[in-house]
């Protein structure tokens, strides 16, 4: 059990930086998720931590040791791979015992640890079988077991659920969380799935194109995204974005778009004042778009008439794809009992206190409150 630190870590291939200046500190016992789209550098970062990839610049620290330059076996880590990477020619028992044998653990201890882990993961009856006789979910549990028996300081997991079907994924997700609750080992978990990230991580590090965007709790990431990338990446369906101009209209700050305008709340007015007569990116989450009929108290000047393109019924809610007369599209999450069909016109409200604002070029959030800078967040 140990803390993990990335200290200004870079990974370059020639002139191309795949990981840029990554600085991140994971306290002992925390479950941290590295999330981002393909090519964001998250797997590379994990592999540099594991020692499977050379570090171009910077240092990696596990516990109180600088492990940069050490081989994987000297780092006291265990890894769960996306494709499980079980040894096909060995029995499950031997797969689990392999690492312990290499570390010269006494035979009776090996046996005890292997059987304990196997029964904890519910694979005790499979110990004599070979990997090819197991289902995907069972193999994944063996992979987890192989990591558990080693009792390392850090667990590294590289998209372990990606090869499982949806139902199994949800199940195994819960098992991994339970595992962490029981063992408390520091865990670094890589995934491209933001749902996995949000549900599993104590804190989440969002990466894009090799750069750390934000390192925060799921809640803060969701409600206080630091830039438009994070805002659009976290949350499903994704946040809706519009490009609008901040303008003075009859003495009041308004957001003016091609076909509709939106009022600016008092709290946001001060922050937006600096961007008067500029175009900004305005964001609103799908669940914050409201059918006007539902709440008459909503500000009338925030109403936009839209046409329904597609309705996706999910049971507990529906996703409604809307289009304005000017062609702006947006997605809204609405309660299931509102009858909406493609072709309907409906008035929706974008409440001003639910709006997010981002600089048009940099994507950085424009906010009235103090924003924790990235340098301090790590």
């Amino acid at each position, binding site marked *: 059990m140990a803390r993990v630190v990335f200290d200004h870590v870079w990974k370059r291939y020639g002139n191309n930086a795949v990981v840029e200046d990554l600085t991140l500190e994971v306290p002992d016992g925390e479950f941290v998720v590295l999330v981002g789209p393909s090519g964001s550098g998250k797997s590379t970062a994990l592999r540099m931590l594991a020692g499977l990839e050379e570090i171009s610049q910077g240092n990696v620290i596990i516990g109180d040791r600088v492990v940069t330059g050490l081989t994987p*076996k000297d780092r006291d880590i265990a890894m769960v791979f996306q494709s499980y*990477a079980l040894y096909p020619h060995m029995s499950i028992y031997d797969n689990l015992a392999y690492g312990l044998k290499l570390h010269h653990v006494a035979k009776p201890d090996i046996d005890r640890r292997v059987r304990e882990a196997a029964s904890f993961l519910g694979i005790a009856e499979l110990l004599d079988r070979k990997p090819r006789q197991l289902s995907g979910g069972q193999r994944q549990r063996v992979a987890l077991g192989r990591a558990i028996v080693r009792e390392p300081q850090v667990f590294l997991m590289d998209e372990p659920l990606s090869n499982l079907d949806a139902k199994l994924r949800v199940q195994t997700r819960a098992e991994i969380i339970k595992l962490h609750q029981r063992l408390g080992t520091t865990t670094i978990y890589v995934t491209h799935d933001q749902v996995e990230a949000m549900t599993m991580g104590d804190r989440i590090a969002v990466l894009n194109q090799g750069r750390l965007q934000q390192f925060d709790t799921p809640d803060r990431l969701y409600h206080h995204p630091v830039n438009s990338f994070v805002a659009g990446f976290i949350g499903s369906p994704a946040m809706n974005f519009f490009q609008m101009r901040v303008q003075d209209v009859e003495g009041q700050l308004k957001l003016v778009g091609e076909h509709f305008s939106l009022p600016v709340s008092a709290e946001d007015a001060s922050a937006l004042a600096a961007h008067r007569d500029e175009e900004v990116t305005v964001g609103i989450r799908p669940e914050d778009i409201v059918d006007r009929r539902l709440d008459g108290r909503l500000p009338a000047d925030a109403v936009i008439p839209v046409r329904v393109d597609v309705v996706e019924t999910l049971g507990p809610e529906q996703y409604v794809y809307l289009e304005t007369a000017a062609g702006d599209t947006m997605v809204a999450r609405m309660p299931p009992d509102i009858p909406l069909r493609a072709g309907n016109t409906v008035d929706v409200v974008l409440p001003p206190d639910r709006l997010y604002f981002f600089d048009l070029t940099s994507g950085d959030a424009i906010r009235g409150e103090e924003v924790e800078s990235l340098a301090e967040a790590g």
Partner: protein
Amino acid sequence: MGTASRRTIGSILFYLLLAVILVYIIFPFYWAVRSSIAPNSELFATPVQYWPSHATLANYRLVFQNADFIDALRNSAIVATSVTLASLAVGALGAYALGRFSFRGRRPVLYLVLSMTMFPQIAVLGALYDMVNRFGLYNRLGALILTYLIFTLPFTVWVLTSFFQALPHELEEAAYVDGASPLQAFYQILLPLAAPGMVTTGLLAFIAAWNEFLFALSFMQTPDKRTVPVAIFTFTPATGGGFEIPWGQMMAATVVVTVPLIVLTLIFQRRILAGLTAGAVKG
């Protein structure tokens, strides 16, 4: 023509073709067996006797009484086994490097290896003869063991390289994370998984070495150092204890020499199939 009858004609033709091919391939061996148990008088008799009327094992007895032939069997066994083991050991290590690491000159080395599988033995014979003499290996089995590697190593390396390439990288990485050194990962994880490839190339190397004639003829001089192909070749009328070429004994010797190869192939046949299709290993 209806599709049903067309299909029947198709399968008839297919089985006909199959029969022709089988006969073509098996006939020589069947003929050797038949000749080996036929009394001398019936060997060349016409009309052709497809099975001897008085089968006899006399030829086999004579062959096994032939001390030179027994020596040859022993020599062949030593040479073929040594060559196979050496090819596999060196080839596996070479294939591991070529299949798993990228380094400058990797491509040229691979193509060089490939080109050597097509090299005609006769072209290198003169130079090898010179080398064998310089190393003082003339008329010693070591000469054969060394020179046979020229044709066994290339295809061993080539086939095993594709095997090692097909193994998922994550297997090695999992081994490293578990605490294995590169050598341990090679021995305990990768090598067992390349087993089908090793069996295939090992068997092919063994067969090639066992059947090799040219080098054995050129580099060995005394009868006690001959290998089996050369020994059979030098069955003289004197061997037959008569005045004619002892075809019966040569056939018997041939059968004796071929049977081990057939047995080995039958034992490992399933592994060979896997090896030939460059086994894809699932992680």
